[in-house]
């Protein structure tokens, strides 16, 4: 099998195993670890995890497909997760969605042609009091307007032409 955890990740996984009475219980943490390690969970990665956790590959596939937070395809450098649940919806999430779709030319589930931005609609991000919310990679951007989002996107585009990886 081609893919494999780095030694550090493997050590981390072994520590996770000690927390549960049954190895199968490590499936979700193992998938998280894999997504962190490889950036996304390809079919190959799923088969590796299946072997690691000792489960049939199709059962691992079921779980990875159930949770939308696991990426089956390589995401963009910046992964935009727009909340589409009620509070954000009422506070203008639809406008943000149109803005993203038009300016970046991506539909939900797609990655922009330059590989910079991927776009996903998600359910409540638990930050309704600052709606509407977008999560970009692991950062929250609160109380957004189209103008604010536009500024953020410009900033990210500019950054990525240099070597700055911070969001």
């Amino acid at each position, binding site marked *: 099998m081609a893919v494999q955890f780095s030694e550090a990740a493997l050590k981390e996984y072994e520590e996770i195993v000690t927390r549960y009475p049954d190895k199968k219980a490590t499936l979700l943490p193992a998938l998280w670890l894999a997504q962190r390690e490889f950036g996304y969970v390809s*079919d190959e990665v*799923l*088969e590796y995890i299946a072997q690691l956790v000792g489960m*049939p*590959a*199709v*059962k691992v*596939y*079921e779980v990875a*497909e*159930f949770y939308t937070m696991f990426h089956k395809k390589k995401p963009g450098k910046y992964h935009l997760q727009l909340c589409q649940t009620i509070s954000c919806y009422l506070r203008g999430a639809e406008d943000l969605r149109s803005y993203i779709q038009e300016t970046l030319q991506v539909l939900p589930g797609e990655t922009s042609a330059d590989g910079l931005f991927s776009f996903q609609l998600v359910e409540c991000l638990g930050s309704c009091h600052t709606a509407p919310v977008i999560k970009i990679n692991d950062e929250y951007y609160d109380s957004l307007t189209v103008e604010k989002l536009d500024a953020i996107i410009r900033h990210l585009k500019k950054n990525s032409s240099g070597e700055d990886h911070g969001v």
Partner: protein
Amino acid sequence: MQKMITVNINNQEYEVQEDCNIVEACDAHNIPLQRFCYHRYLPVDGSCRTCMVEIETPQGMMVTTACTTKVKPGMAIYTNSEKAVAAQKSALEFLLLDHPLDCPICDKAGECLLQDNYFDFGRYDFRRTVARYFKGGKALNAGEHIVLDQERCILCRRCIRFFDEIVRTPELGIISRGHESSISLFPEKFIRNPYSGNSADICPVGALTLKEFRFKQRVWFLKKTKSICTQCARGCSIYIEHNKNTVWRFMPRENPALNRVWMCDRGRFSFNKLHEKRIFTPLKHQEEISFNQLYDDIAELLKTRRSGEIAWVVGPFSSNETYYALKTYCGDNAVCLMPPASGERDDLLMLAEEYPNAQGATFFGLQTETAPLIDKIQKGRIAALIIVEMDLFNLRNDSFAQCLMENIHKIPLKIYLTAYRDETVARVDYVVPVRTYAETNGTFINATSLLQKACQALVPEHPDIDAACIALYTIATGARKHQRRYSDASEMYDKLRSHYDELRSFQFNQIPEYGIALNMPKRADEPFKGIHVDFNVCSTAKPLEES
């Protein structure tokens, strides 16, 4: 015998088995109740939510799924109360909501639970106001035998449970969520297990269909004949399903003590063989002759031989009636060759002996020791050899076949009774066409000593083609057609049964559906060895007609 308790269903008292669930209780008394995910031979899942009933509990009336609820003494159950019916209809409505409704081109039509249940329990007013959702995933290649139509799937998980729990090769899963959920294989993988055909049987809709049956026949044209599979010594109970004298599929037939309601792919897809390489006309030195001439010639030729010079060779492929005819009419020079057991085997059903009736040959006391006959052939003391339903010249690594090839010139007369144009046909003097097991009645004894009957499904191509047992009788006795004692193989069975205590009380047409368990040593373990599946077959339930 199971302990029985009394429950109250729709205000009437019924006796039911103590450990059954409400679906099973209803089935035992023919009380209609829809279901999809429940299957008699699979663990209960409770995933389709259609088998809704209302029950009385200490907390008051409760609507619940019948398949996940075990009966309790005195339990009051309503399948037809207002709430129960409303719940049944709503659950069903959801299943049909995004269904493609391509029944006209769906092979399942006619035996589809969605059709049947909707007919009985559905609501007919279409209430959808938002746009239809098309799931897609049509006619995907899911394996050697299986085609998958994801959008027809109602997510009952029967196929998943069958692969997970019975075959123990988890290959299918449900991916995504909500209305997008679909049945799926792992990407780029295919169903590979040797029992895959069963998934199409138990799929309540047309999501899993068989490549070998797709678009071949409408199921309502098929006639079902009770028979057995002859591809290995397990002898699974099957239906031969046929129309216009052609077999279109084999379907496993329920037999709780044998194959439950499963069969392997090797057996299932052997049905084509019944129509391949058939031989319908008698041959004399490879020239076609009439049946009259055939039997006249043979009678004439055998008349001049002493019985000690005539040898009979059969294999474990023939019916009990054929063995009985050999034993009764053909003298002492009859042997049964046992080809090596070289097929695939496992703990479920498949056995390595790829022939159906080695036990029958044992039961009728046929000689299996070939050395004396080999000796006689080598010394040129065999003047006539009659080979019965076994492709002897195609047997590899068999000492008898070897000897025969080397000494064939020493046997002046070779006669072959066969249904198929195989290698042996070209090496003999006379070929006597006989019927396949699907063209005659017959009985067989499987590896675990169960005697079952295989009933006649097809009419032979030519009226003079006989069952092997009758052809043998004719040859051995020199009887003319009008002198024959038997007009059908079942009469041969009815004759032989009188000699055996275990069979005496069963006429051919009274042989029980699940067979007769004979008290003789078994050649194999019971099926499903070490496979513990949590299912429960009520002794009071009537046989499963279809999934």
